């Protein structure tokens, strides 16, 4: 096919592209995956029985503030890396802010607790499954994001995969909060972050293969 024929075949019956098409695709992929994750939390893990009273306490909102702010930063970075000429911008560095804030809260909590409680605060009741759960709950959202990327043009595939994985991990962790009754900041900082990091690592590994176009 010569170029003129190619141009003719590409431009006949051209469909308009809405102005925020890229953002909508990302949102659609994440919401579609998020619904599956939410169903998994409800049926597989179950909502925490004290969810309603917990939502009146500060701990629940500290956890959500942590996972939500990370989710927003990672999603913003992913949206930028979906464009061929996009850098990460400051979004990744901005993720240090919630991490440092939660670390500060963790130090304050530890300082107020007797030394003999520290290990229990760190490990909680669920340290062995928490990171795994966050990682597993990230997978549907990550799959949704991969679907979105079919229309995108990332040029830094490993990095785009990593931010997509971290976004999926952070949104997955946000939904996991509906199940997880742990209250210590050090617990969240360690085991939630580990699960999100694992999701990011997965994205970094599979990105170069799955995001090619």
């Amino acid at each position, binding site marked *: 096919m010569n*170029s003129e024929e190619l141009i003719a075949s590409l*431009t006949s019956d*051209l469909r*308009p592209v809405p102005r925020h098409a*890229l953002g909508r695709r990302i949102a659609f992929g994440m919401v579609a995956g998020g619904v599956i994750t939410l169903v998994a939390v409800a049926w597989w893990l179950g909502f925490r029985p004290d969810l309603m009273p917990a939502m009146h306490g500060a701990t629940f909102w500290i956890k959500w503030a942590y996972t939500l702010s990370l989710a927003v930063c990672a999603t913003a970075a992913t949206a930028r890396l979906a*464009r*061929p000429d996009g850098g990460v911008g400051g979004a990744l560095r901005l993720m240090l802010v919630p991490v440092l804030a939660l670390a500060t809260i963790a130090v304050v909590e530890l300082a107020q607790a007797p030394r003999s409680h520290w290990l229990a605060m760190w490990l909680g009741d669920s340290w062995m499954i928490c990171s795994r759960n966050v990682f597993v709950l990230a997978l549907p959202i990550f799959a949704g994001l991969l679907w979105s990327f079919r229309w*995108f*043009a990332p*040029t830094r595939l490993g990095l785009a995969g990593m931010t997509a994985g971290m976004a999926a991990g952070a949104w997955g962790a946000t939904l996991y909060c509906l199940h997880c009754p742990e209250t210590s900041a050090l617990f969240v900082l360690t085991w939630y972050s580990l699960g999100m990091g694992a999701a990011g690592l997965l994205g970094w590994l599979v990105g170069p293969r799955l995001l090619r176009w």
Partner: protein
Amino acid sequence: MAHDDNHLRALMLAGLAGDGAAHAALLRALLPPLRGFFRRRLSAKSSGSRDDDIEDLVQETMIAIHQRRATYDPDRPFGAWLFAIARYKLIDRYRRSGRTMPLDDLGELADEFDFAQASDARSDVDRLLDTIPDKQAAVLRATRIEGLSTAEAAERLGIGESDVKVSAHRGLRALADRVKGGWR
């Protein structure tokens, strides 16, 4: 020229709004810069398959520009977006063929993505080339700008290979004199 980028960007925006004619005009206008971009970057070892490679890459890039047009951010320069796609397609080609590309070259590539600046430089060169004899200018355009080999340029211009070499040499010297002599 910034004008170039604005013009292409206007066509792109019309295409995004659903104007098929504008989209076709855009793709047509992109053919020469894309051919030049890939020609300068593919090694000249086998000229026959090289032309095919260039056309392949140009067409792949055009398809990507079309299919992934939603990734263009209207607030950013069009040329940066265009050449980021072209560059990706070039690297992808190298990767698929199992060849490696030194990272140093990539840095150099990145510098050339400012479309506006590139066009600016091109119009300067055009004006400079207008001041030397036609044959020398044609030889320099073919060998130094489009990146043809001596043999390819000789065939295109219908002159001998030694004539190409001599004309390129004289042309470069004439250009050097004009630049040194304070050409404006």
